[in-house]
């Protein structure tokens, strides 16, 4: 402004020439600039310009022009534009609205055209340096003008514009896609053409304005690019349209669909979309007509990048949401995992994936309502799926941490895993096949062979890796090793397996151990020979028992008729040191069975010098027939105590619970439970006063058809071995004596102190090292509850003897 003042001063000082002439020259030049239609003869113009230059007024031309543009914009053009855009308040149909939009922009262009061409002209003069004119040239001038336009026009944009633009672009997009789609595959939208509505513009066919819409799109792009408003007006709308469309398409095609890969499909589709983008961002082009932006132009390259990014992000978002189901469906969902892997590498969403997966596990899996075997099944598929997704195993390690922690708190985890390994678990054959696949020792050897790998190929761990002593090398993906390491020690598993093996062997009737031998051999490969030694002895016991049985049978067959044993008895003979602790139950068997056992023992002693047998009367199984007056139950397989009960009823047809319990030497509750089987079979019934009677005449005949293997309905098939927790309890009980002694001598001790003392004193057993401090604490707390121990201020002491 100041400059202008100076200029005008200088004008007046040096003004001998008629002011009139200057004014006329200014008028003619400015008129020539603003309205192209104004006819001023070239000479006239040149003269005027020269005059202005001479008077030093020429630099003002550009300023004046921009000023006028600004004035005009704010006073009439901008209000007119917004007015025109809003005018038909919601009365028009989409088609009309599109027309209004275009018209508004067209008018805008019409209004601004004179100024733009004026600037162009002035710029050209400046460039040519005509009459000593100088300035920023057409480019610079226009740049300034566009900035002004943008500033004034979009200073307070009404939401109507965005809405309209969005609507218009969406429409042209569907029109375009319809046309392209038809060209590529007509099957995509066959219903549209038949259903009466045009799939492109969504109105009845006879009113179809598809072509018109495309035409309008072209024009709009042209106008916007001319005014350099394209980026400002369209980008946002286009971005949100793309986002929405990709999301929509993904919802439609991919959600819940894990068995197909969608990458290629989407790649093709995105190329199609790029075609449309080319139309939207038609650059002003070399010619006067707007040419679709070529795919190689920087704008398009940028959009292509954006779109891929959108796609990856949206895909990853969706799959993260669904990851739990994908894992559950693995390996059927392998395609989805591979897609996800591809996209995840391009977006920075690992952390999101981890958090989401963790919480999915926690809310859907790790609660009391889920069976342990189901948790294991999911965990196994998670291992398989995640090692596919992330070969560095970091996701696996981090995301599955909660599962491992939770499994540690379940009592039957080990049993389930072992059952899985031996192929007992129903529906969970993964582990068994994994076991037979190969041994990890050799597998890992291949992995960790350092010399084989090129140091150049080294890749660092992802940043979210848990720093631990084991490097990425040791981060195992072997399912069995991972499961076994839940507890951190093999021994617990081996012990549990021994328990399971013992159960299975004791339930056998025919010494058939082929399957167990195979399992033990496989486990030997995995855990090492020495760990499985006990199991081998157990299997050998089975084979020995079979041979001894054969021997004894042969001997018996040589006996005369009346020397025959009272009942056919065979035995499984255990090496007690090698079998897991078997449950001790008292049971007095009927004399006839005892006699048979004595005879058997006698023969055994003859066979094996200096050795004898100690029978476990409650273990084993009995096959028997029950003959009643009107029916026969054949081939029932029952437990010894059930057999003993029914044998007693043979001698005397009614017993009370007390009598039976006394006779059998077993607790009443147990006898009561075992009686249930015979009641269920309709052989016994209970009458008032707690007496049980034999039902000689069966009234309900339908039960009789049932034969064969009977399993007590009211109880789980109980294990013959003591459970893990019972054994632990026993071991801890052993420490109780030590703890008492320590506290007697030292008066009071903290938990840590007790733990470390126990370590020192009881160092010989393998038990202490396995016992962690929390377990000890739980044990001590129990003692406190039982009032055998006092605890205050973190120290334990014995109660004072009263």
């Amino acid at each position, binding site marked *: 402004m100041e400059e202008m003042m100076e200029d005008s001063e200088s004008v007046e000082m040096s003004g001998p020439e008629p002011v009139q002439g200057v004014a006329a020259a200014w008028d003619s030049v400015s008129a020539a600039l603003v309205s192209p239609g104004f006819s001023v003869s070239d000479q006239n113009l040149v003269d005027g310009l020269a005059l202005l230059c001479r008077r030093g007024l020429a630099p003002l031309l550009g300023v004046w022009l921009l000023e006028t543009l600004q004035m005009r914009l704010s006073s009439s053009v901008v209000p007119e534009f917004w007015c025109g855009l809003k005018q038909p308040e919601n009365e028009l149909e989409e088609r009309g609205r599109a027309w209004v939009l275009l018209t508004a922009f067209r008018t805008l262009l019409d209004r601004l055209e004179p100024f733009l061409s004026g600037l162009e002209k002035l710029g050209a003069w400046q460039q040519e340096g005509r009459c000593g004119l100088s300035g920023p040239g057409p480019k610079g001038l226009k740049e300034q003008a566009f900035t002004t336009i943008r500033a004034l026009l979009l200073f307070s944009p009404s939401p109507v514009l965005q809405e309209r633009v969005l609507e218009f672009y969406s429409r042209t997009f569907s029109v375009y896609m319809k046309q392209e789609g038809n060209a590529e595959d007509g099957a995509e939208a066959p219903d549209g053409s038949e259903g009466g509505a045009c799939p492109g513009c969504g109105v009845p066919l006879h009113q179809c304005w598809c072509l018109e819409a495309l035409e309008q799109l072209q024009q709009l792009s042209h106008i916007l690019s001319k005014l350099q408003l394209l980026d400002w007006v369209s980008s946002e709308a286009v971005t949100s349209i793309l986002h929405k469309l990709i999301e929509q398409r993904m919802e439609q095609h991919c959600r819940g669909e894990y068995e197909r890969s969608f990458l290629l499909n989407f790649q093709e589709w995105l190329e199609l979309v790029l075609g449309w983008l080319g139309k939207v961002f038609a650059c002003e082009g070399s010619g006067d007509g707007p040419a679709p932006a070529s795919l190689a132009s920087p704008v398009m390259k940028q959009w292509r990048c954006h779109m891929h990014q959108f796609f990856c992000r949206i895909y990853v978002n969706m799959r993260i949401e669904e990851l739990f189901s994908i894992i559950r469906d693995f390996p059927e969902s392998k395609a989805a995992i591979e897609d996800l892997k591809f996209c995840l590498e391009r977006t920075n969403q690992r952390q999101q994936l981890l958090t989401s997966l963790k919480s999915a596990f926690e809310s859907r899996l790790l609660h009391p309502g889920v069976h342990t075997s189901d948790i294991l099944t999911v965990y196994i598929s998670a291992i398989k799926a995640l090692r596919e997704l992330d070969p560095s195993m970091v996701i696996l390690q981090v995301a599955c941490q909660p599962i491992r922690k939770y499994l540690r708190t379940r009592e039957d985890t080990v049993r389930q895993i072992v059952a899985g390994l031996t192929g007992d678990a129903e529906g969970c054959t993964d582990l068994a096949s994994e076991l037979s696949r190969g041994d990890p020792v050799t597998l890992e050897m291949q992995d960790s062979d350092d010399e084989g790998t090129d140091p150049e190929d080294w890749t660092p761990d992802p940043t979210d890796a848990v720093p631990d002593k084991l490097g990425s090398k040791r981060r195992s993906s072997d399912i069995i090793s991972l499961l076994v390491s839940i507890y951190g020690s093999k021994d617990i598993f081996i012990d549990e397996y021994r328990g399971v093996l013992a159960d299975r062997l*004791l339930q056998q*009737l025919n010494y058939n151990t082929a399957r167990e031998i195979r399992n033990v051999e496989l486990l030997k490969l995995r855990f090492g020979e020495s760990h499985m*030694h006990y199991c*081998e*002895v157990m299997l*050998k016991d089975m084979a*020995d028992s079979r041979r001894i049985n054969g021997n004894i049978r042969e001997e018996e067959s040589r006996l005369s008729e009346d020397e025959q044993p009272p*009942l*056919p*008895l*065979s*035995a*499984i*003979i*255990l*090496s*007690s*040191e*090698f*079998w897991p602790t*078997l449950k001790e139950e008292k049971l007095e068997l009927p004399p006839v*069975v005892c006699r*048979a*056992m004595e005879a*058997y*023992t006698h023969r*055994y002693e003859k066979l*094996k010098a*200096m*050795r*004898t*047998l*100690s*029978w*476990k*009367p409650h*273990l*084993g*199984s*009995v*096959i*028997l*027939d*029950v*003959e*009643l*007056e009107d029916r026969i139950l054949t*081939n029932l397989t029952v437990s*010894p105590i059930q*057999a003993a009960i*029914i*044998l007693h*009823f*043979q001698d005397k*047809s009614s017993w009370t619970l007390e009598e039976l319990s006394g006779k059998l030497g077993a607790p009443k509750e147990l006898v009561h439970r075992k009686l249930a089987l015979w009641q269920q079979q309709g*052989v016994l019934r209970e009458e008032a006063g707690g007496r049980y009677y*034999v039902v*000689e005449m069966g009234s309900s005949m339908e039960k009789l058809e049932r034969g064969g293997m009977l399993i007590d309905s009211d109880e789980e098939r109980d294990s013959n071995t003591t459970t893990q927790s019972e054994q632990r309890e026993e071991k801890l009980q052993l420490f109780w004596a030590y703890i008492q002694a320590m506290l007697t001598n030292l008066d009071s001790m903290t938990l840590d102190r007790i733990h470390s003392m126990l370590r020192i004193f009881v160092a010989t057993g393998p038990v202490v090292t396995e016992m962690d401090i929390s377990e000890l604490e739980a044990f001590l707390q129990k003692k406190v509850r039982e009032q055998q121990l006092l605890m205050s201020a973190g120290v334990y002491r014995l109660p004072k003897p009263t």
Partner: protein
Amino acid sequence: MKVKIKQWNGVASWLWVANDENCGICRMPFNGCCPDCKVPGDDCPLVWGQCSHCFHMHCILKWLNSQQVQQQCPMCRQEWKFKE
């Protein structure tokens, strides 16, 4: 009612008829086996001396082999003679 036992599958554990539980030499249970053996029973038998002490056969043989002068029972220091 008549009950006919067709088959009784019993379970028993075998044990040595010995006057002690553990071998005096290796301190392992008789019903287990000596430290050198894997399988108990027939493969790792017990032997009795005339002094009535008994040991894992492998243990006492090892002991006797290590005695240069006189072969004595490690428990009672009487001369070791296998019980017939």
